[in-house]
């Protein structure tokens, strides 16, 4: 290991070190401040005699005289093992839950490598999230990357935890019910938001099957460059070496992209759209593409990144480039949220590209594709009519049009709307779809196959048939669950003290029985952010 005391320039998060002859590109660096504090960094640019290093931490306190820089000769690696489950790490990968140090089985390069396209297994196993707008209309499959496009103040966190809680491999395709391991990567979210996630994971016992990497809003922003990579490295290890089904939640990707912009600006690079660097697409792709399955391996990595669209603008570079990389998107709508609809998923711009692989007779039900397409078309028609009604009034509409208008309202109220603890299985969602479609004239149902209409839809058109729903176990929580989850915003969590420790018993029933190493530590999860 070579050490230099020749820092020439400090500029934002970047320091320039003179006299370094052969630093390796992307090499891990230790920066030692005059007061002895150690920080990590990475070589951004290297030439004979000079290296530019980005520091994952504040540059406050560094100087050009006594600061020492050590070049480790290694790339940035994450120690991994089974013991990671139930643990909480900082955004730089240091345990912050007061648990014992991790005994690494392996140390993996956090940048990963591209999965060989030939080795990829086609994602086709249906994941049941229990949310109708996702399961029936925008089906998620194992190995997919499906982001939540949200806006500030919308309940994306609630939806993300609900998905994490309810996601299971049900249906005929997967081999029975299997729960997901959650890897959670937080970039620049507030303490209140982090505490919301932690509390919910803890309550349902999911924490024991979760690995958390937390970079909060007051943590160094450049550290966000590595947080998602750490999370995905852990996820890949658990999925491909340990055969687990992994669900990765990354929030908030907007903060990540902003850090990338900050770094690019500090390097005085030519800015692209809205000041983001031209390689934002490539950089985001290196994160999002780390999802999928591999032939011959049981585990899969499914990604659920969350991003808030600045000013709800879907053409902003971050959602725009994300949409080009991910396999669809779930878009939350402020309009629906204002109407009090939860989850406020706007079905029309939402899409799951891999849906057709995960549905059908062998996986969900034979009528799934048709019902979904019909619901879409009818809802789109009803939505269009709304703007017409605003101009000409409802009376001017024909009988047929009024039916579509009523359908759109019923669709939002009954199909989209569901409780925070309501876990609808796919059968229920599809039956609900047929029930609503019964109000549409038969001649207009062009998207469903006639035989499916006969088999599934006719009973609703003929009389007062009521589908008997299976009661999902999670609905119990709605009654016993704590009230604040039902209310909107999560600001109040932030004011609660020890919120992650409270009420340990509440939700343990469901998953606490499962044995897993690391669960001893799970209980002690109060975060104390002490950095060296």
């Amino acid at each position, binding site marked *: 290991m070579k050490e230099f005391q020749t820092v020439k320039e400090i500029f934002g998060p970047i320091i320039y070190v003179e006299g370094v002859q052969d630093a390796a590109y992307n090499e891990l660096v230790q920066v030692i401040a005059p007061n002895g504090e150690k920080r990590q960094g990475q070589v951004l640019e*290297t030439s004979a005699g000079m290296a530019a290093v980005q520091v994952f931490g504040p540059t406050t306190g560094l100087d050009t005289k006594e600061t020492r820089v050590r070049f480790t000769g290694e790339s940035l690696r994450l120690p991994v093992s089974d013991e990671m489950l139930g643990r909480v790490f900082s955004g730089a990968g240091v345990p912050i839950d007061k648990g014992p140090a991790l005994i690494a089985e392996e140390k993996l390069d956090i940048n990963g490598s591209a999965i*060989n396209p030939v080795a990829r297994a086609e994602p086709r196993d249906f994941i049941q999230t229990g949310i109708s707008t996702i399961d029936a209309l925008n089906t998620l499959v194992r190995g997919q990357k499906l982001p939540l496009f949200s806006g500030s103040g919308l309940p994306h966190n609630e939806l993300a935890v609900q998905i994490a809680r309810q996601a299971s491999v049900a249906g005929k395709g997967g081999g029975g019910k299997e729960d997901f391991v959650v890897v959670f990567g937080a970039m620049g979210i507030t303490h209140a938001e982090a505490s919301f996630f932690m509390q919910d994971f803890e309550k349902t016992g999911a924490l024991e099957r979760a690995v958390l990497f937390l970079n909060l809003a007051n943590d160094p922003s450049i550290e966000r460059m590595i947080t998602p990579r750490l999370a995905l490295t852990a996820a890949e290890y658990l999925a491909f070496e340990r055969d687990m089904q992994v669900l990765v939640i990354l929030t908030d990707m907007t903060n990540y992209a902003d850090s990338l912009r900050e770094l690019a600006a500090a390097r005085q690079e030519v800015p692209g759209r809205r000041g983001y660097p031209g390689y934002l697409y*490539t950089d985001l792709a290196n994160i999002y*593409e780390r999802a999928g399955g591999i032939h011959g391996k049981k585990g899969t990595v499914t990604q659920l990144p969350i991003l808030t669209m600045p000013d709800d603008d879907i053409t902003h570079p971050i959602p725009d480039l994300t949409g080009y990389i991910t*396999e669809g998107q779930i878009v939350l709508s402020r309009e629906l949220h204002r109407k009090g609809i939860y989850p406020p998923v706007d079905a*029309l711009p939402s899409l799951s590209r891999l849906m057709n*692989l995960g549905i059908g007779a062998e996986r969900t039900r034979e009528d799934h594709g048709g019902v979904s397409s019909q619901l879409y078309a009818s809802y789109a028609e009803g939505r269009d009519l709304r703007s017409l009604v605003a101009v000409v009034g409802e009376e001017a*509409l024909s009988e047929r049009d009024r039916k579509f208008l009523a359908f759109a309202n019923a669709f939002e109220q009954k199909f989209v709307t569901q409780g925070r603890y309501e876990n609808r299985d796919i059968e229920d969602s599809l039956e609900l779809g047929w029930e609503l479609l019964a109000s549409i004239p038969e001649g207009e149902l062009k998207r469903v196959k006639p035989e499916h209409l006969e088999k599934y839809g006719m009973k609703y058109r003929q009389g007062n048939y009521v589908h008997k729903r299976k009661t999902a176990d999670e609905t119990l929580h709605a009654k016993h669950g704590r009230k604040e989850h039902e209310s909107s915003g999560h600001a109040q969590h932030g004011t609660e003290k020890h919120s992650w420790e409270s009420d340990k018993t509440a939700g343990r029933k469901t998953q606490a029985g499962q044995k897993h190493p690391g669960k001893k530590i799970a209980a002690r999860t109060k975060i104390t952010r002490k950095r060296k």
Partner: protein
Amino acid sequence: MVQGVLSRISGPVVQATGMRGSQINELVKVGEMQLLGEIIALKGERASIQVYEDTSGLRPGEKVEGTGAPLSVELGPGLLSGVFDGIQRPLAAIREESGDFIARGVQVPSLDRKAKWQFNPSVKNGSHAETGDVLGTVQEFNIEHRIMAPAGVKGKVEGIQSGKFTITHAICKIGGKEVTLMQKWPVRLPRPVREKKHFEPPLVTGKRIMDTFFPLAKGGAAAIPGPFGSGKTVNQTDLAKYSDTEMVVYVGCGERGNEMTEVLETFPRLVDPKTGKPLMQRTVLIANTSNMPVAAREASIYTGITIAEYFRDMGYDVAVMADSTSRWAEAMREISGRMEEMPGEEGYPAYLGKKLAEFYERAGRVWCLGSGSHNRSGSVTVVGAVSPPGGDLSEPVSQSTLRVTKVFWALDSALSRRRHYPAINWLKSYSLYLGELREWYEKNVSPEFYELRGQAMALLQKEAELQNIVQLIGPDALPDKERLVLEATKMIREDFLQQNSYDEVDAYSTLRKQYWMLKTVLHFHSKANSALALEVPLAKILESPSRQKIAVLKRTVDKDVEGKCRAIIHELDGEFAK
């Protein structure tokens, strides 16, 4: 060979000194790991090199070796059904070498060196041969792989014989030079042709909106721009599956890994209707996904089109699907930015337009090179997807593309949101091949085909105007004649233009079927129009049972369509006669 030393590393572009004597675009091996790179700028003894693999871990002082040759692809038996990365490294062989994840510095030849191919000569010893002449054939699946005399040879054929050879084994000598089954060609140089031909038969895609409304000629170039989620990739894979081309080169340039997997897993299962063999056997896949190195993404488009030109030179019709050219342009922008070049519009290099034009100009229908082979012609058709940021077509890549492509299939997110697929907007799209293809359509489909097409387009245009009025005053305020237009265009949209790629029957429509479907819909409109003139109320007209029958035509198998349509037309005539 020139040997230099790395002096600066920052991302995918590195610099080396001591490189005097190397050529621009020369392939070099960078560092201890021997990563592949290409020289993109030279200044004195300094060279800028774009590296086709991740540069992490490279250090100043490591050596850089020249190879003396530009980036080239290997052309010969073994290409078909192959899956390669952007610089034609075989991904299956890489997997064997380095496992499920792509490691760096893996050195595998593009084409299998060990496989032996049965070569059957078609020229005799002592005959004269020159560049482009077919020397013999190798059967690759059910495709006749024609072995052509490579560039720069001319003279008497000696020692040619049939037998099993590896691709590097000499099969004969021409003018004293050894010729093998395999040849090499630099990717950035278009392969020469004897002469370009005019465009004639259309590329029949089986998609009604494409074939009927906006046809693409064989040898032509088309652009599919659209925002994310509007169906660029689905349309491209459908074209690869169903279009009547003899070979497909599918370039996944900076796109999703799972999509490549979908192609990889579905194509071997799908059967080419003409040959009855798996589609994969007529396909070459270039897969450079978005997380694979950016420089190789830049090269992937050239690799793809060079392979396509090679098959064209044998006399085949080849289609190139480039998905997406925007990612390619962005790769250029990234490299240009790292080179600190003066940026043009939106940070793209000033030569963006030139590069796009050069690429699309490599499409064409040609008389192939070779002596006395005027009877051999082939074509390369290029379909490029464009991914404009925010769906805004005013951006440089879309605009530069539209200047050089003659077919524009405009994808529309408003259509895809209501699940109207293919989400091609019929008002914004255009095809400039209509004039050249008219004769062909009138001769091979029906003399009245263009007229029907014109009528349908006029109705759709009228609908757009009426919609503006409806938005203001509601549909009831329109006179019956105009409401009938809205009903008729609704039938055109829903019963003709909409096509389900996932429905076994509907996914592909023959031109005959398209013609009869359109004819029937328009016949309904004209009959209803005359009935209106006789003061039959519109509501009564719309009750016609034939409408239901028209709606299910798309799910009717091809051979029954004509009969059914004739029956419906007959019924309509009867109905409205009352």
